[in-house]
């Protein structure tokens, strides 16, 4: 199963490595990790997405709570939360497929942010599933480079 954790942590040096170390040490997966400062200067927010069986996901939550630099852990339910991700992707094109590529971007709500003679850079922000799908569709054109932010999540209510 998938576990989405929204974690508030002290904004201090070494905290990210502590959290990453916890996952590494105990053999938990990190599918994605996004970190940023919140509206409070001394608090950072992390969204960590992991997969594992029920016991593993429960243990992750407990071990996150055990960390003294972790202020709050919330486990987000996929149906009751909003998850978004942003991706920058550089794709090759030629005269034959240029039009279909532009059309695909348009259909998927992606924005072309840079164009060169051979490649374009496209930006998309959407749910992780859509971002994944979009990347899949671009494979046939030839992907040069991908940068993803990782998922950020928030409960709806």
């Amino acid at each position: 199963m998938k576990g989405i954790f929204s974690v508030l942590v002290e904004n201090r040096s070494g905290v990210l490595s502590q959290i990453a170390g916890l996952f590494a040490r105990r053999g938990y997966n990190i599918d994605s990790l996004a970190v940023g400062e919140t509206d409070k200067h001394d608090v950072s927010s992390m969204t960590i997405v992991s997969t594992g069986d029920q016991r593993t996901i429960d243990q992750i939550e407990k071990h996150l709570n055990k960390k003294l630099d972790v202020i709050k852990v919330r486990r987000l339910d996929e149906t009751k939360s909003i998850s978004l991700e942003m991706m920058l992707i550089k794709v090759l094109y030629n005269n034959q497929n240029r039009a279909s590529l532009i059309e695909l971007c348009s259909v998927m709500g992606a924005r072309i942010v840079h164009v060169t003679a051979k490649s374009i850079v496209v930006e998309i922000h959407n749910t992780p599933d859509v971002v994944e799908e979009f990347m899949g569709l671009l494979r046939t054109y030839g992907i040069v480079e991908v940068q993803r932010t990782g998922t950020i999540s928030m409960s709806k209510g």
Partner: protein
Amino acid sequence: MINGAEAMVECLKAEGINRIFGIPGVAIAPFYEALYHHPEITHVLVRQEQAAGHAASGYARITRKPAVCVTSSGPGATNLITALATAYADSIPLIAITGQVDSQLLGHDVFQEADMRGATESFVKYSYLVRNANDIPRIFREAFHIASTGRTGPVLIDVPCDIQKMELSKAFAYPETVNIRGYKPNIIGNGQQMAKVIAAINRAKKPLICAGGGVILGNGEKLVREFCEKNQIPLVSTMMGIGTVAKAHPLYFGMLGNNGKPYANRAVANADLLMIVGARVADRAVPRPENLEKSLSVIHIDIDSAEIGKMLGPTIPLVGDIRHIFEALLQADIHIDTGKWIEELENFKKTTVDHRVFSDRLVNPMTLVQTLSEKMEDTAIYVADVGQNQLWSADNYVMKDGRFLTTGGMGTMGYSIPAAIGAKMAEPDKQVVAVCGDGAFQMSMFELATIAVNKVPLKILVMRNQYLGLVREHQEKVYQSHYSGVELHAYPHYEDLARAYDMACFHASSNEELDGELDRFLSSKEAAIMVCDIDSANNTK
């Protein structure tokens, strides 16, 4: 204004610390200069930093308060890591103060620089790198709070040399309160869970308590004992839980696990309700936890919620401090009749045949531990090392009203001698005996100097079988007796070694000699070593 080093000493005084264990070096020299002017804090110079950590561990376990060890930077600090890992695995509250290179040199790989926060990340409950001397009072206050509350454990404070020399910009004031927003240990058990626990006990026909090290760490022995007696609930213990009750207690059915008593394991297998109290349910105690949860209800009580559900999914989890929980359980309305169940357990105990055969050539290790612990004073402290000696000790130790100290989590060889030094310094009036094998002895024998210099009248009993016995046993069973790298031979000459440190030396090489030699050994006023020769053919199972 005082400097950082003086502030560190003031913090220790404010915490009531009057003894610390360590080895100085240049990076911690300002602190030792401050210490020089404060003879009210006794510094015990050990001979290797790991021993400072183990001695502090023994001291902490007996005083039941955090104990302090100090090292310099680089190799001095890294030498401490095994002791920190040992304390962490056994949840022993330690404050480790390490010197560090000057702040502006951090990260430059200068002489004797080691990233101690990084290196100890998975072996401490929390760690600090002090960046400003003004933070020292707050950091020390927090460190002692963190080490001694919730699930206790070691806390590291890494202090760069320049910070120790830096003057505080305001007058020293030790904070009265602590506020760490990410740390609020859950002390009081949840009321609803508590009600479920009581209901489950009332439903049970064959309840059994499994007492772990957490019972002792949480000062809960007396309450657990009272609870068992009041409701006639039998108990078994893990190795770290030895000491919850006396061995002769009618409700005690021994240590469980693959090194434990077969009748203790039969008790677990036949119970219908198992109350695990302050135990990790680790592999040596419960090899196949998944079988357990199928066959019986499990109540798991622990201060650390992450321990619950780690190995098995308990029917009823209950997080909280053992004292709070058992005080409440003692007040609870519990009415069960366990008469038949206890009869059944007594029958297990009587009919379980111990198939192990111990060699009576030289000294029989089972007889040795039994005789030694029976002869020891009621309140004595027995410090068992790691290896076959530990398993024979745990299996045969006759617990009365004393303490049984060992490292069950990390299993660090060489623990017993430095830990016994700490224990004896904490309780000078109590008899303290370190029991180790000849392998473990040689991992800490340099500490004989600390014993001699400080005139610590503790007793060291060495079971000499001339092998790293537990590995030998493993090689015998698993690798067709291909003994590889395990033979120690008869060295050292213990009598010469004892003489080198002004210690008395006793020796038994037969069961007949044992009685008299043990009497002389235990009654000697000074520190003493006793060597007991054991046949290397003796195994633990």
